[in-house]
């Protein structure tokens, strides 16, 4: 308010820098460290082909003779493989980079799908109300009463049986995105609906109705932009959940095939060798997974505190 008398508008970047969010970010070391780690992981994953010394998808670069070299700080290591190699002789560092890329991709796409379904359904239920609301929310309740993993296991197991593992492996990534996306939409729908119910009572919505605006315009132009804060918060939690779901499914052999390993399938494939002393194949991707999920959750916690102190973690 103090700037009203001055005529100069601060630039967009200045506004962002001075906003509450940026301020609390600068004051919160946990958020800063989490963000830094998250950014490093994301950058490393996105530019995996640049950073990775080998291409784990290229059979010509894999030599089975190189299998199970330990990381460089352990005796008996080959210096060209920083984190050692896995059972097939792939460079573990490169495989982790590519695997993280897949895990993040699946997580983000699944959450995008969840968000699309959940926001549309939640907005409609909240805004229209009445029977439509009842019907949609009962659907959400039913969906929620099945656990995500149970639905996913059944769905993926059936698909694998129907299409055969050859085809399944080729399209595994899409199946994973679809199943994780569909299983968790009610989280979004419920959050969005609750926010819409609160926003709908505000006078700016009445004002829009008095101006004769149609329901679609009111929903997407007026209510949705004001419901974004909880959507952001829930998105962080959901990305973390989706990454874990994907890892769990892959660990159970229902996810990414060993030829295209995500973090989960990498952990799974290393699990067979853990007792033969090759602990690194499981432990290193495991640590990366835990760190990734942890920083996302920490960022989500921070965001929740900043955007809406009252919101309860769903």
């Amino acid at each position, binding site marked *: 308010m103090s700037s009203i008398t001055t005529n100069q508008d601060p630039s967009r970047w200045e506004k962002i820098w001075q906003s509450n969010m940026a301020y609390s970010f600068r004051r919160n070391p946990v958020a800063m460290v989490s963000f830094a780690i998250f950014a490093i992981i994301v950058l490393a994953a996105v530019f995996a082909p640049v950073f990775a010394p080998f291409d784990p998808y290229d059979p010509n670069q894999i030599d089975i003779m190189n299998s199970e070299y330990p990381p460089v700080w352990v005796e008996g290591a080959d210096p060209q493989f920083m984190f050692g190699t896995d059972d097939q002789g792939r460079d573990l560092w490169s495989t982790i980079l590519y695997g993280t890329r897949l895990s993040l991709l699946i997580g983000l796409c699944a959450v995008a799908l969840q968000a699309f379904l959940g926001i549309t359904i939640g907005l409609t239920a909240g805004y229209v109300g009445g029977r439509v609301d009842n019907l949609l929310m009962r659907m959400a309740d039913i969906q929620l009463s099945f656990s995500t993993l149970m639905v996913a296991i059944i769905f993926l197991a059936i698909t694998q049986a129907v299409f055969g593992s050859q085809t399944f492996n080729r399209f595994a990534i899409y199946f994973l995105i679809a199943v994780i996306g569909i299983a968790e939409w009610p989280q979004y729908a419920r959050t969005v609906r609750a926010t819409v119910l609160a926003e709908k009572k*505000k006078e*700016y919505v009445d004002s829009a109705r008095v*101006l004769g605006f149609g329901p679609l315009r009111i929903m997407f132009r007026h209510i949705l932009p004001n419901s974004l804060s909880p959507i952001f918060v829930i998105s962080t939690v959901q990305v973390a959940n989706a990454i874990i779901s994907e890892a769990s499914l892959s660990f159970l052999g229902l996810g990414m095939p060993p030829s295209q390993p995500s973090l989960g399938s990498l952990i799974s494939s290393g699990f067979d060798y853990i007792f033969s002393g090759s602990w690194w194949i499981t432990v290193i991707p495991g640590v990366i997974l835990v760190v990734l999920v942890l920083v996302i959750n920490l960022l989500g916690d921070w965001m929740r505190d900043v955007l809406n102190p009252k919101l309860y973690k769903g």
Partner: protein
Amino acid sequence: MKDMPDTAPLLELRNLEKQFDLDRGFLETIKFKGGKIYREKRAVHAVNNVSLSANRGEALCVVGESGCGKSTVARLVAGLLTPTSGEVHYAGERIDNRSRHDMMPLRKKMQMIFQNPYASLNPRMTIQQALEEPVRFHNPSMNGSEVTDRVVEVMKSVGVDPSWSRRYPHEFSGGQRQRIAIARALTVDPEFVIADEPISALDVSIQAQVLNLMLEAKEERGLTYLFITHDLSVVQHFGTRVVVLYLGTVCEVAETDTLFSNPKHPYTKALLSAVPQLSDAKPDHIRLKGEIPTPINMPKGCPFHSRCSYSDARCLEEQPQPLHQPDGSVVACHAVEENRLDG
């Protein structure tokens, strides 16, 4: 607008009723009391049999205490609620049963200003976006510069600095926001404005600014107002005619001067005497017994009888009808009808 040949009222409410169901669905209607299970459907009787009319150029004020249904009346007129029964007529045409599409031409003529300037502007839209949106929506043929011109013209007329246009509502004080909200309502060039407690959320010195603005707009644009408020001093200043509501029922309708110099209904008298005055002489505050009953399951008879010191057996049984008085006001009170009030 004295030269208007059209003498029909611009707005007319006929026997308007609005009830809100408290018990929705079958299960909620089942009650248990005194060892018996029975079915009961409760409803809030927010507006009961209200008939009013507002002429062109008038500032019709609706006053009453919280829960008297004055905001519900405003929302019924604005089409935000549908009446349970009764009719709303605007410029001779019935409007309460129209679809959104059929209402469209009217949306340009009828606008609303809300109580809380902190909630009535979309927090994620800049002032410019908020003001341009209704113009574009209602005038799809206008090009960009025409829209901007219209918006700048309205901004200037209500004292909104055009240099504010790229800011967001949270950067402004309550009074400034209410100005912006008024500007938004005026962008479509309405002839009728419903104002639901437009100044009660504002500070005293700012109230005067907004009230002046609304008076100016009335004179310059020939607006007709339906002004909802609980503040009698504002009514006295702003209104041409006053409607006093109690529990969703009309007690008294009168010209402003008449009402303040010669209130007739016992409730109006009590209301007027309760306003804290600046002057040394304390008026004798007429004490009402009890408190406002809830408008659930309305009592028989006069809605005011439980607090009225003039009530008798007839008031308990029979609801008084609004009757015309010699000085032009309309009063619904048995005691007034029977001349039982002294003075």
